[in-house]
């Protein structure tokens, strides 16, 4: 069996007195479409930041492509396509400037594929990022995350702010394409129907812990639907939380 693309063992992270992640174990095999679900504030983004080297663990081990993302950020990040949940593309750039800048950073950049994506996403190359709608900004972010055909695509709440049609058509097509080419996708979401549509593995995070981690088929067999599984594993914990 090939080495997992993402190998996280006993990952622990604290922010002051709050434990954001507690002994999280996740192993993402190559070629998988891995869904990370959880309520808002469960720790999904914190987990993803560890994969990108943006956070150092307080305990445990994080390996991506067998490498430590903190110690070797260039080697790891050059193989990851990342779409952030934050809207942080430089607003002053035009779409063309964004692609021109990104092209220089990724040796595997394919101009033809980038242009294909741009046309598919209907992005005006002269348009400034800050003038784009939220959906178009997400498409621009996807463009630069996909154009160099990364081995691992990490999407943090990719559907946040997108209308259902765009969500269904763009993300589903992209993820299926990447999965078919043997690349790996990890995406986080709290929209269960979306996860059920495209993922083949699911990890449910609740209050910083992995409540459930299994192939989607297995979850559907045991719980009937992802929502029921979520409510069973995560909802019970959420119900026991003190009101805000």
């Amino acid at each position, binding site marked *: 069996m090939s080495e997992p693309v993402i190998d996280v063992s006993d990952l622990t992270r604290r922010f002051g007195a709050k434990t954001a992640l507690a002994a999280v174990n996740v192993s993402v095999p190559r070629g998988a479409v891995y869904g990370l679900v959880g309520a808002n504030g469960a720790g999904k983004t914190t987990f993803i930041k560890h994969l*990108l080297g943006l956070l150092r663990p*307080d305990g445990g081990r994080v390996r991506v492509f067998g490498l430590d993302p903190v110690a070797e950020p260039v080697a790891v990040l050059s193989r990851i396509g990342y779409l952030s949940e934050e809207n942080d593309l430089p607003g002053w750039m035009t779409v063309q400037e964004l692609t021109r*800048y990104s092209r220089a950073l990724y040796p595997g950049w394919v101009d033809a594929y980038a242009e294909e994506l741009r046309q598919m996403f209907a992005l005006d190359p002269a348009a400034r990022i800050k003038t784009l709608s939220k959906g178009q900004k997400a498409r621009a972010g996807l463009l630069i995350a996909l154009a160099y055909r990364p081995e691992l695509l990490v999407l943090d709440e990719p559907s946040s702010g997108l209308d259902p049609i765009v969500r269904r058509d763009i993300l589903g097509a992209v993820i299926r394409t990447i999965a078919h080419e043997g690349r790996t996708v990890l995406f986080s979401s709290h929209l269960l129907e979306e996860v059920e549509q495209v993922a083949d593995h699911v990890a449910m995070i609740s209050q910083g812990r992995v409540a459930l981690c299994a192939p989607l088929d297995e979850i559907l067999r045991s719980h009937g639907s992802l929502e029921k599984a979520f409510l069973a594993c995560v909802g019970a914990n959420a119900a026991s939380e003190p009101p805000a």
Partner: protein
Amino acid sequence: MRSPAAAFAWEFGHRLRWGLIALGVYLAVLATVQFLVLGPRSALDPARTTTFAFMVLVPLSFAFMYLLAVFSYGLAGDLAARHSLYPARMFTLPVSTAALAGWPMLYGTTVMAAFWVAAALLGLWPSGVHAPLFWPALFGAAFLAWMQVLTWMPYGLPGMRVVAAVLWLTGIDAVVVAAIEYQVRESVMVALMAPQVPLAYLAARFAVARARRGDVPDWRGAFARLGRTAAAPRARGGFPSAARAQAWLEWRQHGRSLPVWTAIVLPFQLLLLFVARDEPAVLTFVTLAGMLLTPPFLAAFVALTVGRSSPEAAHSYGLTPFTATRPLGTAALVAAKLRMAMASTLAAWLLVAVALPLGLTLCGTWPVVLERARRLAGFVGAPRAVVFAVLCLLGLLATTWKQLVQGLLVGLTGREGLIKASVLLRLSSLILIGPAVHVLSRSQEARIALWNAAPWIPAVLVALKMGAAAWIGTRLSRGRLLGARALVTGAASWVVAVMALYGVFAWLLAAAPVAHSFLLLLAILAVPLARPSAVPLALAWNRHQGARAPSTRVRSGPRPLPRTALALVSMPVALALVLAVSFHVRNRNNGALVSSGEAREYLLHVPKSYDPSRPAPLVISMHGADLWPAAQMEISRWNTVADENGFIVVYPSGVGGRGPRVWRMDGEAPDVHFIADLIDRLEASYNIDPRRIYADGLSNGGGMAFVLSCTLSDRVAAVGLVASAQLLPWSWCTDRRPVPMIAFHGTGDRLAPYHGGTSPVVPRHPLPSIPDWTASWARRNGCGAKPDESAVAADVTRLEYTGCSNDAAVVLYTIHGGGHTWPGGGPAPEWLVGRMSNGVDATRRTWAFFGAHSLSR
């Protein structure tokens, strides 16, 4: 909070709280210094421009610009952008446009006016600068109000805001400056300024209304008709490398800030230049100095924004995921920022390089500047003047870059508390410089303490710097942030820069009595090493947040700092140590005694031909101010003459550890006792002929020789004075015994003027005319009134008073055009002390004179 007014007030207060606290602390410190420390009678004197500038003008300028930027929301975005800088998030509030424009303007103008009043009452009036209170407050308020209009207005073209700001604000400034020049009455000024704020309010309402409804004009299409298409993107090739791409991004994000701010400030300074053209030259030079200091001053202000990863994230001190997740190493990210800082520096200085000559040309003040340049060239020589000027300009350029990089170090940590503390510390140190300079100028004890510590201060700073650099280098190596090759290359580049700068210092100060180890330490301190090296650590701390865990240790274990890099950066330090030891060994004394309860030293030379059975003459040769026995030995070359003629020569040392080494002549005159004790010691140790003890000295040492002729006339047979500086009046000398005297003095001596007057080294003691002094001596010796004059060399005239009592002749050698030097002596820094003449050998002539005179028993 129940009203928009309160909400606006709270928001401004909350955002400004640190700035207001800092401003409040500064004003409190200023008030304390002015009224309690200095007192009403000795407040900060505007004539002491440096102190006044650092204590009052610079902090007030900082505060003025800070208030301007904050109340106009100018820090919220790109000044060159087309859209309004008024925060768009506020357009959706249930507040009228009038209120959106009115409340920030009201609070801003009120704070600005109050700031002026406080500054005038606490900073200017106590210093005797009785600036009016009302119309400048109105002017400040109007300036801010129009700045708000200009930043809130949307524009049709990128960069138009900057142009409009420069033109409009320059216009206002021109009116005010003209009013000052023509001494317009305050009532007229008030009448001029008062309507400005209401007018600006109306314009601001229009601007905010326009921005609120998204009415941003777009005139780029008009320019497209000239052949440039704004809609279609211009075809551009790709970046050749990731590094170039990142450098481009950094320039676009931050690189324009410094040049833009410089472009805004320079026109006001050009106006000042215009006003100053008919004023005394000092005002022109103060304005020029201000222009030259503008980029480094503004760089300190801009520095912390350079560390941000996005200009739009106004309060974001961390890295955005977009930047942090680019496949670039931390070192590459930092390198891009450093390159951007250099490009930004060069762009700002390009503006100064264009504006300054243009301003001088338009104002017709070139002749003033050229005349001063000629005087400097005449003083130190044209090559030195040029190198000095180039060094100053390069130093200012480097300082500008350093300011930006220093801001990077703190800004890239991403820790808000650290960043704001750094700003507070910087402002505090700026405020403290003024009082520190003031205390030094008033307190002799403080000056002496500083003088004594001067050789050690750079040594301690270098030790700290090198220690920090070694620690940083180790962390960079262990964290694999920089490879061995990069570390070695960086270290080698630093060493080359240090040695080059040391070479320039050594050439500039050639033959000056300065330890070369000191120059090398200054060069080590001047070339940045530790702080730029620490920037990758700061960024890594920001990029990978959290405690270091065992899983993040590199597989091969921690790497030590490459030995090559360590050896390279140690080289200049080791060389400085060697130079210091060598200097100490070459210049150490070889004798000591206790006199008047003090430990005193001297350098003794006994010729090989000395025969204890035969009494030998003794020459006591005293060094000049701030020199030392070995230096006097090198300058006078008495040892050579002593070897040829078989006499002993001793070079006593002025007392050290109390500031510059000078001879103490008045009061208890402990140095007279020292010389007497020295003679006793030598008479006890050697066979000294008591009838043939002589004394001479250079500069301050010559003054001491005069004192010995008046206090030890029963022991000193004759004295010699070379470029002497007489600090005591002739009337002080009550001993009327005729003492033979030989003197040498150059007419071009700037430090002890031949015809008397003020010396730059002793500005409070006018020095006597040397011919008059010589004539007084001749009268004391009962010589004839008319001296014999003869030419000795092409540039040397000899004046001899004869017919004196006891044959105590008085001779003066005048070296025409000669400087503050020992004629025929060792090398001297002519750029500092003036021309050295070899037309006469002062030492040999003095010995010949001494040989002809002895004490009669």
